[in-house]
C-alpha cells in the first residue's frame, strides 16, 4: 500500500475555509489527506503551530489565506506571507524539506482551486515520503537498556 501523507491545513475562515466549503458544495474531488484546522485569519498561524504539527507527525502543513489585498482583516495575510518564508527557512535548517510547509492563497470562490491545491500538495508530500523525525521522543527503555548494557553503575 502506498504511503498516505498525513497533512495538516490551516485555513483562513473567510476565503480559504469558505473556498474549501465551496469545494465541498461543488463536489470537487480532492484527496482526504488534509486535516483542516480553521483559523480566523492566515495571520493567526503561528510558526509554532506548524512546527508542532510536524513534531506531532504531520508530513506536511498547508496554510491557506485570502489573496493579497483581499484579507478580511485588511492585511493579516501579509503577515502570514512574511512569517511563512521564515518558518520554511527555519524548517529547512532543521533538516526538514521546506516543501513540507506550503502557503497558498485560496479565495472563497476558488473551490476548484482549493481542490487542486490539496491534490497537488498531497502528491508532492507523497513523493517526499513520510517525515519521520529522528529521536524526537525520548525512549526511556532504550536508555535504560543502554545503561544495563554498560554493565552497571558509574562510579
Amino acid at each position, binding site marked *: 500500500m502506498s504511503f498516505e501523507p498525513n497533512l495538516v491545513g490551516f485555513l483562513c475562515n473567510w476565503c480559504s475555509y469558505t473556498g474549501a466549503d465551496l469545494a465541498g458544495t461543488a463536489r470537487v474531488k480532492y484527496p482526504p489527506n488534509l486535516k483542516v484546522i480553521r483559523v*480566523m485569519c492566515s495571520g493567526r498561524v503561528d510558526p509554532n503551530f506548524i512546527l508542532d504539527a510536524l513534531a506531532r507527525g504531520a508530513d506536511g502543513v498547508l496554510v491557506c489565506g485570502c489573496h493579497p489585498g483581499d484579507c478580511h482583516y485588511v492585511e493579516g495575510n501579509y503577515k502570514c506571507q512574511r512569517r511563512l518564508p521564515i518558518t520554511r527557512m527555519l524548517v529547512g535548517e532543521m533538516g526538514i524539506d521546506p516543501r513540507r510547509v506550503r502557503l497558498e492563497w485560496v479565495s472563497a470562490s476558488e473551490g476548484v482551486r482549493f481542490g487542486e491545491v490539496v491534490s497537488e500538495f498531497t502528491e508532492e508530500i507523497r513523493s517526499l515520503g513520510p517525515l519521520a523525525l529522528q529521536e524526537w521522543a525520548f525512549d526511556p527503555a532504550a536508555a535504560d537498556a543502554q545503561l544495563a548494557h554498560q554493565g552497571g553503575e558509574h562510579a
Partner: protein
Amino acid sequence: MPKVNITVDGRPIEVEEGSYVLQAAEALGIDIPTLCFFKYVKPYAACRICVVEARDKRGRTRMVTACNYPASEGIEILTRTPRVMAARRLNLEMLMSRCASMPVLTALAGKLGIDQPRWGTGTDTCILCGLCVRVCDEIVGAQALGFASRGIDRFVTTPFEVDSDACILCGACAALCPTGHIRMEEAGGRDVVHSEITLGPNAAIAVPFRQAVPNAPRIDPDFCVHFRTGGCKVCAAVCPKECISHDDVERFEDLEVGTVVLATGYQDFDPTPMKQYGYGRLPNVITSMEFERMNNAAGSTGGKILMENGKEPGAIAILHCIGSRDQNAHPYCSRVCCMYALKFAHLVKEKTSAEVYQLYIDLRAFGKGYEEFFHRILEEGVNVIRGKGAEIVRGGKEYPEGTLLVRCEDTLAAKFREIPVDMVVLCTALEANHDAKDVARRFGISVGADGWFIERHPKLGPVSTTTDGVFLAGVCQSPKDIPDAVAQGSGAAAQAMSLMIRGEVEMDGAYAVIDDEVCSGCRLCNDLCPYSAIGFDETKKTSSVNPALCKACGTCAAGCPSGAIRALHFADEQIYAEIEGILS
C-alpha cells in the same frame, strides 16, 4: 441700507439709498432709454443716452446719467425735459452719423422723435457700448475682449486683433451685442443637438433628460461660465427663489453607519468585441438597453420604434444570450433576458406592423405568469426560433438597401436559416461592475469568479456577507429580475433594520487579550493590528487590546514573542489540541 424718498417725473418712490435712479424709474414704469446698460454688469455710463435732470434739495439742477446716479434723500428726477431730450437726440444723432443704420439705433431714434438724423448714417456697426468687454470681464471673467486705442480710434478687439487664447467661446459677448457687431463663428464648438437637452446646445443649465430624477435643472460645469472663469453667476441673480448655488462641490461625506446594504447593480455587457454581430459597425444593430430607451415615451424618438433613417422597421430580430451562456464571454445565464425579449416582441407588435423573430437557446420563463406571457406572444404571431443567432451580415443586392441578414441554426427544424430584417436587438448580458472587486475589498467581502458579490451562505445567508453588518441586494449579488431584486432588497433591509433596532451589537467574545502579567512591552504587536486595537500604555509599559476594536483575526497572538496575547476562541491551547487531535 437706509431708505430715501425721491421723485421721478413728480412721482414719489421710496428706494434704497445709493440705488440707481434707473432702477427707481423702472420700478415706476418710467422708461429711460439706454444703450450701454445691462442689469448684470456694473453701470458704465458711456452712452449718456440715459441722462436725466436731477434737482437736489438746494434746487441745483444738473444733468446726470440715470444708470449710475445714486439716489439720495429728496432728489427730484426729471426724465423728459426739453434739455434732456435735446441732449439725447443730439448724442444719438452724432452716434448715428458714424454708425450704420441698425435696428437698435433706428428704434431709439424713433422713440426720441428723430425722423432723419441730421448728419445721416455711417458704416460702423459697433456703438462702443462696451457690453461685450464688460460681460467678458465681469461676468465671464475671461477678459478676452478689450478696448484698444482711444478717442475716436477706440475699438473693441481681442489683443493684437487675432483670435484670443483667453476666449472660451461662451458667446456672451455676441449674445449681448445690441448691434450684431460680434458674431460667433464656427470654432470647434459643440455640434451635438440632442432633443433631450431642452435648453439648447450651449446651455449650461439643463434638465439632464426628461424623466431625470430629481427632475430639476442642473448646472453643467463643463459649460457654465462660472466654473470656467469664476465669474458670471447671473443665473443665481435672476433666480427668485435663490435656489442656485455655485459653491456646492462634489465632496466625500463620511457617514457613520452600523449597517450597509450593497446594491451596486451591474453593468451592460458591451457586444462590440463580438464582431459577428456587427454592433457599432452595422446600422440598426442595437442593444436591448438602447431599444428600451427608444421605447420610452420620453426617449430620443418619443417612444417610436424607428430605424436610423427615421423609418419604421419592417422586421426585427431579437437575439437572446448575447454574452450570456457563452464560454467566450460569461458562462452564466443572465436570467432576465428571455422575458424582456418577449416583452420587446410584444411592444413591437403593439407599435408597429413589423415581423418579429426571437432567436433563443432555451426559453426560461420560470416566474409567475411568465409562461402564460410566452404563450400570448406566440399568439401574437411572433416567430420564435430555437437557435442562437450566429452572425449578422448586410443583405446583398437582392435585398432592399439596409437589410440585415441574421444567420442561425434552427435546432428544432434542424436547418440553417438566414433571416432578412431591418433591425436587430441584441439582448446583452448583465455583468458585474468593473470595479466590483474594489468595492468588495473595501467592505471586506468577496467576489466570485463572475464578479458577483458572494453571500455568506447560498442558502442560509443569502443576503448577508462575511462582514457583519454588510448586506447584499439586487443584481450585485447575481443576475435577477425585478421581483427577485425587490425581494432580496427587502430582506437586506430587514436584516439591517433588525441590527439597528437593537441599537447595540453583541460581540461574540472572540477577541484578543493581553496578559498584563506577561506582557513585557516590547511593542512588537503594536503595528500588527490593522484596526489599531492595540495600544501601548506608557505608564504601565505594557500593551493592551481594545476588545471593541478587535476583530479577532489573531495575528497579534501569533506575533507575540512573549506569549502574552491570547486569541479567545482560537487560543494556542485550542489549536495545539486540534493539532494533537487530528494527528493522533
